[in-house]
């Protein structure tokens, strides 16, 4: 008690700063610290998959169809979820993505939609997010 009374200012400043740091680090409502780090896979191209690479991935796969056209390949049907990109960040959908243990694969017939969504999700600190691209030439590297 005496210790607290003597050092209340030191303790309260330290707790306040630590609290702010913890909120910043673990908050789900905000983007994570260091944009460069989270964007790195996009610069390396490691976040792009083709259909035949999917079976090789380990863990529970979740395919999210952001577009209007169904994926032609039948084998992915039971792991596919149709989500409208606008409602992707709604609580229930986001929970689904966060809870999924394994790769989350984004698909849309418009590759720009999946690319934009990928960047948003990655900057929120989600790892293991991929873009499904059937057309190997779509991403000319």
């Amino acid at each position: 008690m005496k210790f607290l009374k003597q050092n209340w200012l030191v303790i309260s400043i330290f707790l306040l700063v630590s609290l702010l740091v913890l909120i910043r680090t673990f908050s789900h409502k905000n983007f994570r610290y260091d944009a460069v780090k989270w964007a790195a896979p996009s610069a390396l191209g490691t976040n792009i998959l083709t259909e035949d690479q999917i079976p090789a991935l380990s863990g529970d796969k979740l395919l999210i169809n952001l577009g209007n056209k169904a994926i032609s390949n039948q084998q992915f049907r039971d792991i596919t979820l149709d989500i409208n990109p606008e409602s992707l960040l709604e609580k229930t959908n986001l929970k689904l993505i966060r809870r999924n243990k394994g790769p989350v694969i984004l698909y849309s017939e418009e590759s720009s939609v999946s690319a934009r969504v990928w960047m948003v999700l990655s900057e929120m600190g989600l790892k293991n997010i991929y873009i499904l691209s059937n057309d190997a030439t779509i991403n000319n590297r």
Partner: protein
Amino acid sequence: MEIRRKFSALLLLLSFVLALLPLSANRSFTVKPDKLLSEVLNEDVSFTVDQVAEFIVREDSTIQLIDLRSPEEFRKQTIPGAVNIPYHDLINTDPDIWLNNKNIRNIFYSNGNIEPDYALVYARGLGYTNSFVMAGGMTEWINTVIETKFEGDRITARENTLFEVRRRAGEMFTELNNLPDSLKTRFLESKKFSAKKLDGGCQ
């Protein structure tokens, strides 16, 4: 004495927290995720190649085309007025050097789609709301602006202006890309950004 102890303890505690943080001088997204998502899914963040062609023909000084491809590809063929910032460089250096002019609309493009869309979200996430993309990239540019020929009997006034713009933009494109290599390199070099110098120090 007493103050010194308390003070040293506080500073040590705080710097201990700092030592645990993955600190770097890199930036983080500042907007809220849902706001950013609805912003970048909106149609008005992308321009069609025809709109871009019109900017070029009008020599619009409020837009800046940014070519995200590799320097080799950029030297081989590029859209008039574009500057080259390879996507990798955009991510790995402070983008403020390039994007800080709020009076200019920056339009990203690459060969296809994906990379400009990353760049769009990245730049807007960091607060550069003056960022746009050219839908379809170079592929679409070549298909639409350079290679479409008018076919048919009658032409409406609107079609006429559209084709006139495409023809002019196409001419400018061919002219630039047919320049002898040395001249072209010099022209493109002259369009390079020079790193913004920070003001400070005591000089």
